[in-house]
């Protein structure tokens, strides 16, 4: 469904403009990391790309087409705080499969769960898992739908190291399988580990969009330099 072209995108929230006329395009597969300080508009941008929020003006074109339900179903969004149903781990997985009319036997489901090392708790209540386990389950649920584009909104924020590592491994696996990943984070070292290209967002504007190596070694904007060096950018 790529390339993605974003033209002059604007979005205004309850307390004023959040995305202020953004232009960029994402081409092939690979992992695009969206970075920027708090309040830059990263999560909002991700929701706009997925159609959870309606744009005020401008365009989002996936391979030349505006968002529609069929396109949205080829994407999957992983929330910062996983939304799990009040059911067992396995039933959470089955729920999304059923919604998409994908039939899968227990073995397939358990295999999926074993990818995130949750097969041993398949019949436990999903809500009783630890934070890291919950996010891994949400990720397994996303993967079950075989999305062409995986949108991830700070999926590893405040998770345990094991879960963080597992998520990063899966991101790299997905890239290897030609899944496009758009990954929001403000963890610089994590971005280092997973990014192919970086979109640097600041106060609702794209200040840089370059390859990861360029961004980390020769950031162009002052704000990006300050951000990378750990100075807080307001």
């Amino acid at each position, binding site marked *: 469904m790529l390339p993605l072209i974003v033209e002059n995108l604007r979005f205004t929230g309850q307390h004023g403009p959040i995305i202020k006329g953004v232009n960029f395009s994402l081409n092939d597969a690979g992992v695009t990391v969206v970075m920027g300080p708090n309040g830059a508009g990263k999560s909002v941008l991700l929701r706009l790309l997925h159609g959870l929020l309606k744009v005020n003006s401008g365009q989002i074109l996936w391979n030349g087409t505006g968002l529609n339900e069929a396109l949205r179903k080829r994407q999957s969004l992983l929330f910062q705080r996983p939304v799990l149903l009040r059911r067992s781990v396995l039933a959470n997985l*089955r*729920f999304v499969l*059923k919604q998409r009319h994908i039939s899968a036997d227990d073995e397939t489901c358990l295999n999926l769960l074993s990818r995130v090392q949750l097969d041993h708790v398949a019949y436990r209540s999903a809500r009783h898992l630890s934070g890291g386990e919950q996010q891994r389950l949400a990720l397994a649920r996303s993967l079950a739908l075989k999305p062409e584009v995986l949108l991830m909104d700070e999926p590893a924020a405040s998770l345990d190291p094991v879960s963080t590592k597992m998520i990063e491994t899966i991101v790299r696996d997905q890239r290897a399988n030609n899944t496009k990943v758009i990954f929001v984070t403000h963890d610089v070292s994590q971005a280092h580990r997973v990014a192919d290209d970086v979109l640097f967002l600041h106060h609702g504007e794209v200040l840089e969009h370059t390859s990861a190596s360029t961004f980390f070694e020769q950031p162009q904007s002052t704000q990006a330099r300050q951000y990378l060096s750990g100075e807080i950018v307001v």
Partner: protein
Amino acid sequence: MFNSSMPNLSKYSVLSMLALLSVLVHPVRAAETIILQSTTSTANSGLYDHLLPIFKSATGISVNVVAVGTGQAIKNASNGDGDVLLVHAKAAEEEFVAAGFGVERYDVMYNDFVVVGPPEDPARIIGLDNVIEAFSQIANSFSVFVSRGDNSGTHKKEMELWSAAKVDVAAASGTWYRESGSGMGSTLNVAIGMEAYVLTDRATWISFKNKSNFRVVLEGDARLYNQYGVILVNPERHDHVNATAGKAFIEWLLSKGGQEAISAYTLNKKQLFFPNAR
């Protein structure tokens, strides 16, 4: 209504719930049944528990009793919500028939009203035999009196007596004169709680269990006569009225057998109702 991701078990529970529902709402109605709109005294004193099984074994007809105040019973019967009316307010009953709601009124039986009060007798009416005098003394001494205040047969009788005693109770309402606005039994409970005088039919008083130390303070005045009447609800007015069975019940009540059954009913070895059908 639920998606199939819920366990199979719950499908069965929905089915069994529906099955249960159909059992629960299944109406239970006897083949030959009439509804008797009745005053409370006849029901609460246990008279119907004595009469109705006899009537049923003779005719096979079940009588369902709705026991409310006379005023409400007449109102319900006017709406057609009953086949037979048995109450004790002759003037209102005759009006009911005159308005075409009932076919004809018959005297069935009588008993009498009594005045009940606390043993201290603050209005000093024990020993009197004139109820009008007694009512005047209650009013003049501002002794607390509890009225039904619900347009029932007893209430209508009480209003007759006050007006004969030339007492304006409406003006005294809320002071010594208190209207409970409820049935005879509840009104007796209130009167006993307030140490007040109260007018009641004798049957209810005899069968009443929460008498405390209250007693009959006045009885025997001819004006305390309490006549019960029975009326068939007019089938021309309400075409679903079960006239055949209703008529059978009335005829039985007025017959020798019915009248003897009324005499035979006693509570605490006292006869409660005295048949007087003509």
